[in-house]
């Protein structure tokens, strides 16, 4: 393998990476998205909430109270900034690491937590692992585990809207690993040919489980892959909230104008493991985190807010206490909720159960329950 021409995962970002929030905590006017102080505060609160929930959910998993969690530690600006830039009527096609964005768009915390427990109040009825929730009401599409499959679907959704002359765009989330998938290729290709208003938002967090980005491609950057599809590629500092909002807004506007899709490579870093099932110490030295710790996306916005006297330690403590309170209530409710009823296993396979499922359902309901706990 040769990676001589490829840039290492950057910190600080290279020159072609768009940044807005400078080290001196001023905003570069070229790409300043013009967020109001209230908007910055709102986004900051969502980022802190997301990180806090991540920590709490990992804790629940370590205690054996939930089975799994796939977190977003270090990627909060990329996730929340991108979702914030999209309009209410636009649709998001998540990967599986973006629960903070779903909550920001209006997914109720209690609904999310029921999903983490896979119980009877889980809207997906305990049929998927935790973090695989759905929320049509806020334009959030059902999540699957296979990497990249949502990319072509996000293109198709916006394509459908285009055929029906509806002003609607989609944003598709995926990681650096997914740029190796056939769905990335097909999605970019179709969107380019048909000028589909899709924002391809790649969270380049440096890792696909244990495999570094250099093993996904010999391309110098991921953004430059867009050129092969006639799709503009943009690199942005994924730990810079302002820059992320800005580039996604521009990509959205471009799509809405009928000019087609944009590929955004948000350069960030996965500060935790791939999921609670992963131990990054097996393949990554802890020193690798150091340059990114100083570029923490939340710390940067907090410093900016503090500089403008919009935030302080008291406000932070109050926010944390408030989120903790809501989370504890949601967990208490979820833990008191029983597992889904046995017969739900046979529902929603088809619109109406055909004879064979009706037969299997009757057979299962007549038999003994499996030993051990559920949920």
């Amino acid at each position: 393998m040769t990676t001589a021409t490829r840039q290492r995962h950057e910190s600080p970002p290279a020159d072609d990476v768009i940044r807005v929030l400078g080290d001196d905590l001023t905003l570069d006017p070229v790409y300043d998205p013009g967020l109001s102080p209230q908007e910055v505060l709102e986004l900051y609160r969502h980022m802190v909430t997301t990180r806090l929930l991540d920590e709490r959910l990992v804790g629940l998993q370590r205690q054996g109270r939930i089975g799994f969690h796939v977190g977003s530690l270090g990627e909060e600006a990329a996730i929340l900034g991108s979702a914030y830039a999209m309009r209410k009527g636009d649709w998001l096609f998540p990967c599986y690491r973006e629960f903070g964005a779903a909550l920001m768009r209006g997914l109720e915390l209690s609904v999310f937590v029921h999903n983490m427990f896979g119980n009877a109040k889980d809207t997906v009825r305990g049929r998927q692992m935790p973090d695989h929730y759905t929320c049509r009401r806020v334009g959030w599409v059902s999540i699957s585990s296979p990497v990249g499959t949502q990319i072509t679907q996000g293109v198709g959704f916006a394509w459908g809207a285009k055929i029906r002359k509806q002003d609607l765009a989609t944003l598709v989330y995926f990681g650096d690993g997914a740029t190796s998938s056939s769905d990335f290729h097909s999605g970019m290709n179709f969107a380019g040919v048909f000028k589909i208003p899709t924002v391809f938002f790649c969270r380049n967090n440096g890792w696909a489980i244990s495999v570094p980005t250099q093993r996904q491609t010999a391309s110098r950057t991921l953004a430059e892959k867009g050129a092969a599809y006639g799709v503009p590629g943009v690199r942005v500092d994924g730990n810079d909230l302002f820059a992320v909002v800005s580039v996604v807004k521009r990509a959205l506007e471009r799509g809405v104008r009928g000019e087609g899709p944009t590929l955004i490579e948000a350069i960030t870093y996965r500060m935790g493991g791939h999921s609670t099932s992963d131990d990054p110490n097996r393949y990554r030295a802890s020193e690798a985190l150091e340059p990114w710790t100083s570029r923490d996306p939340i710390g940067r916005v907090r410093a900016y807010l503090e500089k403008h006297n919009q935030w302080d330690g008291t406000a932070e403590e109050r926010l944390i206490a408030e989120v903790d309170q809501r989370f504890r209530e949601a967990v208490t409710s979820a833990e008191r909720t029983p597992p889904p009823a046995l017969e739900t296993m046979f529902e929603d396979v088809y619109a109406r159960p055909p004879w064979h499922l009706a037969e299997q359902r009757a057979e299962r309901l007549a038999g003994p329950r499996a030993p051990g706990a559920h949920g």
Partner: protein
Amino acid sequence: MPQMNMVQAINDALATAMRSDERVVVMGEDVGKVGGVFRVTAGLFDEFGDERVIDTPLSENGIVGTAVGMALYGLVPVVEIQFSDFIWPAYDQIVNELAKFRYRSGGEYPAKIVIRTPVGGGIRGGHYHSQHPEAAFIHVAGLKVVCPSNPHDAKGLLLASIADPDPVLFFEPKRVYRAAKGEVPQGAYTVPLESAAIVRPGRHVTVLAYGAMLYEALDAAAKASAKGVEAEVIDLRTLWPVDIGTILESVKRTGRLVVVHEAPKTCGFGAELMSLVTERAFYHLEAPPVRVTGFDTPFPYTLEMEYMPLSHRILPTLLDTARA
């Protein structure tokens, strides 16, 4: 009533659906100006335009993936996969996405598309233009699988498939695309899914077949009749969910079962049909159920007629089973 072949009947079904429902779009490789390599979509491009009759890039995975997205949006895409042999790049989207969307979203996101694709051998197509892959889709929870044998059923079943709320794999037996002719009603009508048809009544042995092999089964049944064996031939039409009632009623009457299909024998649909029957009608059986199928080899080019379960292979099995 107009006479049509299967190509014309399927084309008529597509035009009928597209005229009555703006959400229906047709997409695939070469389905536009040229009207498909088998001309099944001929004329649709001129009538409905390039936004609803879409020539796509050459990527089955992209076609099905974007069609799933369109379905989530609310369109009803009818996808053409040029040959079923080329469907495998889309298998992930079909198995893990299309088939599971309703279930995995607790009913919030039903994803409904129809995938039309020509199947089967006997056209000098070698193994990349001849396979009959129904078993790989019947095995997937959430899919419906249809395989018509004649123009009337093809139109009615396709209109039923488009109207059905679940994803449908619609397998078109290309060997009889133009050879099978018959009267086809004008306008909209449906042949209900999950209903088999007894196309030749008989009392000595039940033969289950579908698609192009139905005609081989009928030919064998006619020859068996000359030898005093009356075979009841059932056209399954919908493979899954299969019309178990019609099958069991027949087998309980005849006590004997022969299943015919082109696909390889091992884990083919015949295996499931025989299991279903033996679980439910074992004490009615008077002879071992038998399969006449393709072989567990890739589909051969030069020797394709030796591979396929044609009439001359069905007949002796049918006579042996009837007389056992």
